[in-house]
Structure formats: C-alpha cells, structure tokens
C-alpha cells in the first residue's frame, strides 16, 4: 500500500503542489509587504520642523542609532554603602521587647503581674485566701480577706462557697490502689505537694 501512495505522490500530488509556484510566492511576499505596519504619521504642526532638522543636521539621526559606551561606565564607579544596615538595637523603642532569652515559667505556669487592679486577684492569692478561709473561717473572715485583697465582698462569698482547696486522703500504700496511685511517684517525677496546713 505504501508503494502505491508514493507512486500517487510522484505522478499527481507534487506537480499539482508545485504548479506556478514562483508566481504564487511573489504574490504572497507582496501581500506581506502591503500588510506591514506603517510608520505612525507625524503631527501636522511638527512635520515641517522635523524635515528641516533632518536636512540641517543629518548626523543627529545617525548618532541616536549608536550605543553610547560612556553612559554604561558611569554606573560602574558607584558603591552602595548604607551606614545603618547592621545597626544593633539595644534600647527598646516604646513597648517593643529587647530580651530574647526563653521565658522561664513561674510556679503557677504564667507570668505574674506586678500591678493587680482593684477587684482582681492572681491564682496564687486566691489559692492562699481560699486555703486560709477554710482552715479557720472565724479568724480569717470574709471582710478581712475582702479588705486585704480589695475584692468585692459579695463576689468573695460566692468564691469561698464554690471553691475549696483539696482535702487529702491517702490510701494505704500496701493496698492494691495505694500501690497503683501516685504517692510513690510523688517526688520522683519532679512534682511537689505543698501542704499548707
């Protein structure tokens, strides 16, 4: 089948394809020439002036087509050397932090504030007054706590009603649960129980 195709190409296709090829090529070239983008027309007011300039100083037209090497070398001598690039900030500007060392946790797992607003308390303080109150409610009265920590009395009554420090029950360490529970682990894992009373 391939041989037959080649024969067809030899006797029919190629002569047909090449028929009048030269004329057709020239015609195509002319067409392309015609379609080339034309130079934009100059503004009527400048036409005369530009023509005069070209007539008087034709060397200017030539000059603008050539590369000016002297302009290139102008940048080569330039050195960029800003003075403030490696300046180290040692003083804090406003509230920005300067110390980058890792934060070491406090006892209660957060940084305790220096100033405590009225009517507020820290966990450390609340732990203390709750433990103190439940240890001896007659001696450490609500009014006394409220005055000492400048808290709202009504709110303090609610706090002391609903929150208490843990009561400690220790199961017999010989028993199954005692062996399983944490009393042997305490102290070995870095934990501490602070007994306040």
């Amino acid at each position: 089948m391939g041989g037959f195709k080649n024969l067809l190409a030899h006797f029919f296709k190629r002569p047909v394809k090449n028929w009048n090829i030269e004329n057709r090529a020239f015609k195509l070239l002319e067409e392309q020439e015609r379609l080339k983008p034309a130079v934009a027309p100059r503004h009527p007011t400048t036409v005369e002036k530009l023509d005069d300039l070209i007539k008087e100083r034709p060397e200017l037209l030539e000059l603008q087509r050539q590369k000016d090497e002297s302009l290139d070398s102008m940048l080569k001598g330039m050195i960029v050397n800003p003075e403030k690039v490696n300046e180290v900030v040692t003083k804090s500007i406003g509230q920005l932090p300067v110390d980058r060392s890792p934060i070491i946790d406090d006892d209660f797992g957060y940084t305790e504030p220096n100033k405590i607003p009225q009517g507020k308390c820290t966990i450390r303080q609340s732990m203390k007054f709750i433990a103190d109150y439940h240890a001896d409610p007659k001696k450490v009265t609500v009014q006394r706590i409220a005055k000492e920590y400048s808290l709202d009395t009504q709110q303090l009554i609610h706090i002391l009603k609903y929150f208490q420090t843990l009561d400690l029950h220790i199961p017999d360490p010989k028993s199954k649960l005692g062996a399983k529970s944490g009393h042997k682990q305490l102290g070995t894992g870095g934990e501490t129980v602070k007994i306040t009373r």
Partner: protein
Amino acid sequence: MKTTVNFLNTSDVGIFFETYSQLGFRLNSGLMVIGPCAVFPRSVLHWNVRNVDDISEESLSLFTILEPKIDILVIGVGEHKCLSRFNPKLIQHLRSKRIGMEILPTDQAVATFNFLNSEKRYVAGALIPPSYIPVDDDNLEEDELYLDNTVPDMFEEYKNPGSAEVEASFKKAKDQFFKWRKETEKDKH
C-alpha cells in the same frame, strides 16, 4: 485533723488529666481528684457544684476576677446530653468579661484542657465528672480497685476492717452495685 493541699505541679508539663470516671479525675502526678474540680495551668481546686444546673455566674465567679485574665475557660458539663441544660445566659456573661470559653461534654473538655495546657495557653477548666460512662473492662477494674481500697476509709463504720460482719456487708453491697450497673448498662444500649 483535716489535711488540705495546695496542689502544685512544678514539672515542665503542668497539670494533665490521665483518666476520668464518674468519681473524678486522675492527674498526671498520680493524685485522684474526687468530684468536680476547677483546674488552672498548675493548680487544682475543688469546685462545689452538683451538676450542670449549678453552673451559674456565682459558681464561675473565681474565673472572672483573675488577673491576668484567663485566655480560655473550658467547661465540662458532664455527659453529652447535659449540654442542652447549660444556661445560655452564661455565654453572654463570660463574653462581657472578655473570657473565651469552650462548653463541652467532660470527656472532650478534659482532652481540650490537656491540649491547651500543653501549648502553654493560660487556660482554666471547670469540670464535672460525667454521671454515666459506657462500661468496658478497663474502667470496671479501676472502679473495683477503688471500691475495695479507698471507699472503706471514708466511712466511719468501716474503721475496723477485721470484723467479718462488716466485710460481708460491704462485699454484698459491692456485688449489688456491680449487678445494678451491669443491668443499667444493658438497658441503655
């Protein structure tokens, strides 16, 4: 004399819950907290509420007066169905105090607290043990150990474990309890 502890965990990790049950929570230090508790990054308090209905502005008062203000409060209401009983006005109340909150069933609340605390967020938890936990072999064993060893210490009449009468009555009560629990499990499933 009563002994109270101000529990602090000074290791790097802070407080984590290892397990929870109907009785309370076991912490990573091995201590078991019985009943509802208020947890902070490294300290625990008892929280004197019975169930989700007792959660109110008053019973959450401590969380709103803390300085610095806590980032987020994780409230564990008990089992899943208790969520609907949570008072929606409290959400507005805590929002007005600018405290973020997660109101969750206790099982999820425990996990959320552990996660937030491990990220060193300034988190507080208010958790009520669930009154119902589906039984499997693990927590059955835990409860049995607890009943055998800890509960007797708490009852005045069980101060003399030598007496055979008390032993027998306790064993009977224990058997009844497990029988009752297994039956209720069957009903629920």
